[in-house]
């Protein structure tokens, strides 16, 4: 392998390792390392393998460049949230896939993982199911009507809940997963931010 090929292979590995970095930061890092290699070669202080060895593992360099996922939940995180919401429609298997992604992800701490699991198991696909087996499903319809009169139906829940309360519960049921998703997006950001601050911060004064 020539020096050119060696340097190119090293930079390729670094580019791959730095894939999760925000674009600008990744480009800057690659430029600087490429520049370092070029200058070391121009200076001729050491053979290229020694220069690359001195630079260290590309993976280590990329990891030092900060939170690899930046401020966004990332592809896997977004997939986890989407699958938790709508994966249930993919034969319910999709929801379980989302659940696995949620629990293996370092983006969230356990309270958020629990929240993602419990609101609601099965995601949106489960809501019609809930409506069938839940209190709303037990509505008894009393239809009065007959010849010459319009059919009038009144429905009351088996629990005796007034209709407006059932509507309210339904709205909450529908909105809760959306709220859960928003919360997961924000907490993923916060964890990414913490990863940045885990690096030594300068002390002032």
């Amino acid at each position: 392998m020539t020096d050119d090929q060696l340097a190119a292979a090293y930079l390729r590995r670094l580019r791959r390792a730095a894939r999760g970095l925000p674009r600008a930061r990744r480009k800057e890092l690659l430029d600087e390392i490429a520049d370092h290699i070029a200058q070391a070669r121009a200076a001729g202080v050491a053979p290229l393998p020694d220069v690359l060895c001195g630079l260290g593992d590309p993976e280590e360099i990329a990891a030092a460049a900060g939170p690899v996922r930046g401020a966004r939940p990332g592809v896997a995180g977004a997939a986890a949230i989407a699958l938790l919401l709508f994966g249930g429609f993919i034969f319910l298997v999709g929801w379980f896939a989302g659940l696995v992604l949620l629990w293996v992800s370092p983006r969230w701490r356990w309270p958020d993982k629990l929240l993602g699991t419990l609101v609601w198991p099965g995601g949106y696909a489960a809501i019609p199911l809930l409506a069938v087996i839940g209190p709303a499903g037990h509505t008894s319809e009393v239809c009065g009507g007959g010849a010459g009169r319009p059919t009038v139906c009144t429905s009351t829940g088996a629990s005796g809940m007034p209709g407006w309360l059932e509507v309210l519960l339904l709205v909450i049921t529908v909105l809760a997963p959306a709220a859960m998703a928003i919360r997961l997006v924000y907490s993923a950001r916060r964890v990414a931010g913490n990863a940045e601050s885990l690096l030594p911060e300068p002390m002032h004064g």
Partner: protein
Amino acid sequence: MVADNASHNRASAEAVDAAAGQGQVAQMRRGVLPYCVLAMLRDGERYGFELVQALGAVDGMVTSQGTIYPLLARLRRQGLVGTSWRESNAGPPRRYYHLTAAGRGALAGFSRDWAQLREGVDALLTRSRTGKEGTP
């Protein structure tokens, strides 16, 4: 066989201890590295390659020089160093790093903290050593 296992376990426990100790030293080194970078800029600006070479020449300071570039980028984001591009007589323009006022302040603060920490640790280390020597 049992004895073998026991000695093996002890050996691996020692290896784990040694690794943990090294990990802690590596962690301490990582903690002070940003300030070493700031200190190297105290007397004037330097460009990245030069800075990395100089730090790499300090024994045991940096294990992978490549990580200094992300560190410099972070110091810049934190406003502790500033950069400027300069034409070089050979090759593409170079990015020079210099200390900002905030960087100078952080360095001064760290110098004080470090002196205090070093004295405290030295005192403890010396005391425990003399204590051991005192009991024949």
